[in-house]
């Protein structure tokens, strides 16, 4: 850079001669120099600004481009995140209350055919028919030689069958992986578990969907992939379910019954510990739905939940409980039982004449229809209806089974006074045995409602109050007396202080109207131990006949009660209930003299 002196001597001298101020020259030069310096600084700053802006531009475009890529691309889990709880796509297991498997999955294969790729169609058809005897070789060959390009042959295969199909060596036969639902216990708890079938099918996989029971009610929860391998815990106890099923099956055969059902329920938690309906089926080979047949013969019909029956005298404790709760009677109040009770064109009779009057306790113990009907008249139709409504006997049961909705109680079309009287002893109103079990649980547990459930829970429900503690105690005493000296005397099980009420109802005649003379629904609702109830048991037999005596006997006391007593004898120890001497019972001690 050329450096110009600030005070060039020649110009200073020239200026002095002209009499000018030489300082002006210096300022002039200084200004010029500063201008040059300023220009240089400016261009440098501009250059820096340019570099900086390019850097910012590159940085921001990098961020923007990355955001664009992230927004438009598929999300991928970071591979390095080693997940221990891996997501399982299969259906969750179902286990009982002690963790024993009730339903699980196993991997198997499906078999499909692609006829265009087949080499020897005739031989393939005959070989397949040999492996699977239920396939028709002619029909298979027609399918193979027809227009079809794809057909399913089998949805599931056993490993042996798969090997045999492999051995045919036909390239047109292909296998696809399949998850299959397995119920290792076979028929046990079949009605609770229900069943599954394949939904949308693909070569690589198929949806397993629940078609009945718990499988259907909890279908979404069981299929939820985020559930992982956490199983669905039911309130059922496998060993108790087995014992109940075995005893009920024996009882059904001995009493020549067509069908039977039993429910064992915890009175505080509402958990169904075991629920059996006979005849039953194998959920692994769920039979095709039989339509048009009498539901009583359909093995898939869950009598404990879907079957609504007029249950007869088992209803009487509800009437007695309401009458006591309303303060109309006390357990010792004497009620006129002179029969027959004539109401319009109806006559209400007792099984036997029980004399002119009975106490409320004895009405339950001896099962007097007349006495119960008289109490119901005092209660009145509206109050009776409200009470049964709040006891949950008039609505669909809230249990988590897909069949519950079809077990809606049948109410009289017009709740007249005569309906009130017949309903008081269990005629004219049809409910399922499950409704009965839940109602009895509320009567004996101290008076609070319980909602029946098949899911395991550990805490009592403490539902809304139905009757007071004292009424509950009075009902418990009546039920105990019924077993001690009344219609349910075969229900004694040493050490368990069983209390209960029998019921026998004539079956409605569907063909001719009216009721059958010789076909009954016999049932028994029991609670044990009576002094501090923990469980209720409802046993129902369809058309039982007990033939050991001179005449065939059909009443609940002769048929359902002995079966129920045996169920209690077998299951109570398994439930962990210790036999004990009933408080307040007379122990006979003989003093030697």
């Amino acid at each position, binding site marked *: 850079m050329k450096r110009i002196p600030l005070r060039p001597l020649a110009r200073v001298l020239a200026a002095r001669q002209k009499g000018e101020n030489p300082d002006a020259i210096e300022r002039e030069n200084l200004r010029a120099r500063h201008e040059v310096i300023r220009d240089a600084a400016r261009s440098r700053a501009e250059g820096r600004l340019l570099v900086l802006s390019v850097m910012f531009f590159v940085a921001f475009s990098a961020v923007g481009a990355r955001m664009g890529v992230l927004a438009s691309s598929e999300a991928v889990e970071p*591979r*390095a995140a*080693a997940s221990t709880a*891996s997501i*399982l796509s299969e259906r969750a297991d179902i286990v009982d209350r002690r963790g*024993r*498997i009730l339903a*699980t*999955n*196993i*991997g198997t294969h499906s078999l499909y055919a692609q006829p265009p790729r087949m080499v020897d169609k005739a031989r393939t058809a005959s070989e397949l028919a040999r492996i699977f005897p239920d396939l028709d070789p002619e029909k298979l060959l027609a399918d193979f030689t027809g227009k079809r390009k794809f057909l399913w042959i089998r949805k599931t295969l056993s490993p042996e069958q798969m090997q045999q199909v492999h051995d045919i060596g036909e390239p047109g036969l292909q296998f696809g992986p399949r998850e299959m639902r*397995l119920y*290792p*216990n*076979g028929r*046990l708890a079949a009605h609770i578990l229900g069943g599954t079938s394949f939904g949308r099918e693909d070569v690589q996989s198929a949806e397993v969907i629940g078609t009945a029971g718990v499988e259907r009610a909890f279908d979404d929860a069981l299929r939820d992939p985020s559930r992982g*391998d956490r199983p669905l815990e039911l309130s059922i106890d*496998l*060993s108790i379910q*087995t*014992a109940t099923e*075995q005893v009920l099956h024996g009882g059904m055969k001995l009493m020549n019954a067509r069908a039977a059902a039993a429910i064992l329920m915890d009175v505080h938690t509402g958990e169904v510990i075991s629920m059996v309906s006979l005849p039953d089926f194998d959920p692994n080979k769920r039979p095709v739905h039989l339509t048009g047949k009498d539901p009583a013969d359909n093995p898939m019909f869950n009598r404990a939940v879907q079957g609504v029956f007029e249950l007869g005298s088992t209803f009487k404790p509800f009437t007695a409980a309401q009458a006591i709760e309303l303060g109309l009677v006390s357990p010792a109040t004497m009620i006129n039982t002179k029969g027959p009770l004539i109401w319009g064109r109806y006559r209400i009779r007792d099984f036997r004449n029980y004399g002119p009057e009975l106490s409320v306790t004895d009405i339950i113990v001896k099962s007097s229809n007349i006495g119960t009907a008289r109490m119901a008249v005092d209660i009145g139709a509206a109050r009776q209806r409200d009470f049964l409504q709040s006891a949950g006997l008039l609505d669909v049961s809230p249990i988590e089974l897909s069949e519950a909705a079809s077990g809606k109680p049948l109410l009289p079309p017009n709740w007249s006074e005569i309906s009130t009287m017949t309903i008081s002893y269990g005629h004219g109103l049809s409910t399922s045995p499950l409704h009965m079990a839940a109602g009895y649980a509320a009567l004996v547990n101290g008076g609070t409602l319980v909602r029946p459930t098949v899911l395991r829970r550990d805490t009592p429900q403490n539902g809304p109050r139905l009757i007071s503690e004292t009424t509950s105690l009075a009902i418990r005493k009546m039920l105990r007396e019924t077993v001690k000296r009344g219609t349910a005397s075969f229900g004694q*099980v*040493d*050490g*368990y202080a069983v209390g209960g009420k029998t019921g026998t109802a004539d079956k409605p005649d569907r063909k001719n109207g009216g009721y059958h003379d010789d076909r009954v629904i016999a049932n028994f609702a029991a609670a044990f131990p009576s002094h501090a109830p923990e469980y209720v048991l409802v046993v129902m037999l369809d058309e039982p006949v007990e033939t050991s005596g001179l005449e065939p006997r059909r009443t609940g006391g002769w048929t359902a009660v002995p079966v129920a007593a045996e169920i209690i*004898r*077998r299951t*109570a*120890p*398994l439930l962990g209930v*210790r*036999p004990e001497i009933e408080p307040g019972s007379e122990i006979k001690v003989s003093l030697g003299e």
Partner: protein
Amino acid sequence: MRSLMYIIASLTVMALAVWAYQQNYATQAALREVEKLHVAIGHERERLSILRAEWAYLNRPERLRELAFMNFDRLGLLPITPDHFGEIDAIAMPGPVLPRDWDAIWLAGRADDTQEARP
């Protein structure tokens, strides 16, 4: 001085590059290993579920009942009933440990028994 700084800096960059390169490959190897293990875990899980299903099938109450019935002579298993409950008071306190020659006494008595001819 300045050139020394440059040399040190460039060497550091090179060393870091080598380290990053090695880490990258080590990570990839580890990821492949993890993937392989995941597949193995999947297979093991599948096997486990089959074994569990088999265990449940072998322990189904129906089969256990039949086995208990068939082996009643050896095992003497019965369904539990109310009279199987006991009181703790009904069990005797364990007695003193017997002296060693108890066996000898017992055997001696037994030897006598066998010597006596019994009809």
